[in-house]
């Protein structure tokens, strides 16, 4: 793990779980697999605190455990999973677009809590949805269950590995930690629950029975003692499936940008057909015949078979090679070249970064070297039609930032510099890695700056929160306009200005974090796809 990744993990853990979890988590990321006592000793934290922190981390799928020889349990942190916390808003927003508010809240609850049973999720989401509904209306558990089942069917949520059922005949002592197992075919199996009920609204002040809090408390505890029908079956969000969805989305929008709406719809159809048949890390999808694609086009689309064939030919001939033709049967067999698509997208990202950082002439040189693979200094000047001095300057600037690298080709075995070719080349994989590393650093900087801005204005923020609370309470008790005006004036105009500036800055920083994470996703997908080939 690079320093930049560790720093970013540290900031994320601290923001979401507090200092203690951060200390333990970062320690595990740095040192690798360790047992409980060693963690406590090395971090100088009390055993109690370490236990609490590990429970939180395991609950959120950030740390895994394994039983080693002599019954020692070792804990290991998953650094890449910690970095996924940046993407939570994107996962939740995607669920909203696919399965509306119910789906959004289901995924949000699963991400916030790490793992939950289906019955717990359904109850919680029903309650939350009921809150937002008009007075008198409630959300039925059945509706939430249906959405949950749909999410499971499309693999967006999956079961967590289970505690294996132990036979009673086993005489020995129980192991120090269970070895959780999951069967592939059970991963999306929804347990047969008959969840009947409606969401509960939080009691408003009129219904508040001041005299009997104790009675209510007792009732709550008895309700909790009812047997949970799906006890032990926990669900988590399936991040890989979301990533597959993001990847498909990016490819479709790239095709739409490059060609037109119809081509992107065709590509979207092909990707949808391949969702279940192709594993997410495959370099290309299963071949699809033109006839199949024609049948699977969305219902509203009225293009004839010939037009479809023309589009497919166009897509296959495009130099970007998103779509490839793999055969002629069935009207033409077509595949989507997933790896090539990701490589093109990563390359486009690099080109864009060079253009925005160094200017369009540098970008021209960059694209030139990309296209020609290896070029000498002189050739670069000639092909790019840029004067020698400037070309040299630009090349060295890009070289110093590691977008371009030098390839030495010796003419003689002694590698004498005067008798060696020095060729400029772009190594996409290493440039992508370098850019990814910069992205991690950028987000860490953004988070630090946001925390700094918030801390600077802490007093003012607290004051404004107080004023808001006072106004809210006064409105609830029915105060006059004048009184509300008076309270609002407690915050002076310059202070209001300051708050506005702060809010604008924090919004900008948050939006930047989300967009840098999009680049991170692209680059990570490309690197992963390359490494798996």
């Amino acid at each position, binding site marked *: 793990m690079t320093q930049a990744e560790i720093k970013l993990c540290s900031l994320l853990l601290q923001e979401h779980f507090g200092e203690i979890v951060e200390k333990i988590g970062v320690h595990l990321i740095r040192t690798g697999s360790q047992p409980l006592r060693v963690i406590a000793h090395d971090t100088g934290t009390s055993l109690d605190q370490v236990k609490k922190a590990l429970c939180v981390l395991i609950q959120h799928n950030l740390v895994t455990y394994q039983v080693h020889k002599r019954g020692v349990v070792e804990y290991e942190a998953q650094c890449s999973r910690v970095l996924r916390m940046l993407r939570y808003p994107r996962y939740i*927003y995607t669920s909203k677009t696919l399965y509306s508010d119910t789906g959004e809240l289901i995924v*949000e609850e699963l991400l916030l809590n790490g793992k939950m049973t289906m019955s717990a999720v359904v109850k919680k989401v029903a309650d939350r949805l009921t809150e937002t509904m008009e007075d008198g209306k409630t959300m039925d558990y059945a509706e939430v269950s249906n959405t949950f089942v749909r999410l499971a069917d499309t693999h967006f949520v999956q079961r967590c590995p289970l505690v294996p059922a132990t036979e009673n005949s086993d005489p020995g002592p129980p192991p120090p930690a269970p070895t959780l197992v999951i069967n592939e075919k059970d991963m999306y199996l929804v347990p047969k629950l008959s969840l009947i009920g409606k969401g509960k609204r*939080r009691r408003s002040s009129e219904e508040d029975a001041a005299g009997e*809090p104790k009675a209510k408390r007792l009732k709550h505890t008895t309700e909790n003692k009812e047997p949970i029908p799906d006890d032990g079956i926990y669900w988590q969000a399936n991040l890989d499936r979301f990533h597959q969805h993001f990847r498909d989305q990016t490819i479709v929008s790239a095709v739409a940008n490059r060609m037109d709406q119809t081509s992107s719809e065709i590509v979207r159809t092909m990707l949808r057909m391949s969702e279940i048949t192709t594993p997410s890390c495959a370099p290309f999808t299963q071949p699809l015949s033109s006839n199949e694609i024609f049948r699977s086009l969305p219902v509203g689309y009225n293009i004839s078979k010939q037009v479809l064939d023309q589009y497919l030919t166009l897509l296959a001939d495009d130099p970007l090679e998103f779509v490839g033709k793999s055969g002629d049967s069935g009207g033409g067999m077509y595949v989507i070249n997933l790896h090539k698509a990701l490589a093109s997208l990563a390359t486009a990202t690099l080109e864009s970064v060079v253009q*925005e950082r160094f200017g369009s002439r540098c970008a021209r040189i960059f694209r030139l070297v990309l296209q020609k693979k290896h070029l000498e200094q002189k050739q670069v000047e000639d092909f790019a039609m840029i004067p020698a001095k400037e070309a040299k300057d630009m090349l060295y600037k890009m070289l110093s930032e590691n977008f371009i690298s030098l390839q030495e080709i010796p003419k003689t075995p002694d590698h004498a*510099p*005067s008798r060696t070719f020095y060729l400029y080349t772009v190594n996409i994989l290493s440039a992508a890695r370098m850019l990814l590393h910069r992205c991690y650093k950028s987000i860490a900087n953004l988070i630090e700056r946001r925390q700094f801005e918030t801390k600077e204005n802490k007093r003012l923020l607290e004051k404004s929160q107080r004023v808001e609370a006072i106004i809210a309470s006064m409105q609830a*008790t029915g105060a006059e306009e004048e009184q509300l005006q008076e309270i609002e004036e407690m915050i002076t105009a310059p202070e209001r200005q300051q708050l506005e500036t702060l809010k604008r800055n924090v919004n900008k920083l*948050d939006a930047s*974090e989300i967009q840098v994470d999009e680049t991170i996703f692209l680059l990570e997908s490309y690197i992963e796809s390359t490494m798996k080939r």
Partner: protein
Amino acid sequence: MAGNKGRGRAAYSFNIEAVGFARGEKLPDVVLKPPPLFPDTDYKAVPLKTGEGEDYMRALKQELRETMKRMPYFIETPEEKQDWRRLPRELMPRKKCKKVGPKSKKATDAGKVTSLTNTADVLKKIEELEKRDDGEKSDEETEEKEGNKEKSKEGDDDEDDAAEQEEYDEEEQEEENDYINSYFEDGDDFGADSDDNMDEATY
């Protein structure tokens, strides 16, 4: 070995033209210090993407940040252990003052109902916020707090309640003792003293 060091000009061991420099001098300056921490950028950054989706995700992010801080998974750092026998009692952090207080209650009540529109709760919240600023409690507030405690439907453990009640009683007594009894003992000399002694600051 060293080659023609003294004679004539700089003779490089490689063909200088291969790296793009002509035979003339004008080599770039030697770099004497590390690059600046905040280098100047020649080009301004591209503006951020805007749109409904982006705004929604940003709002979501901010909400999630706040929500996570209130969840039971957020573990606060505990106070450092002190030997309270040696220090004045008033320095002991009271459970109400700590940020952990109201939040841990909210956490234990994750499934239960709390209504912010409940006026009593809102007043309590304001008082807690004020307390963080002042660090002191007036008698009125303690009375209101005790009243709220009784009315509250939050499922606190009875133990916690009792402990807090005890602390309240202690504090009430402490509050009464804030004023040194000796101030008004010498009623006759009070005014005279303050006239003579101009060294002390008057508040």
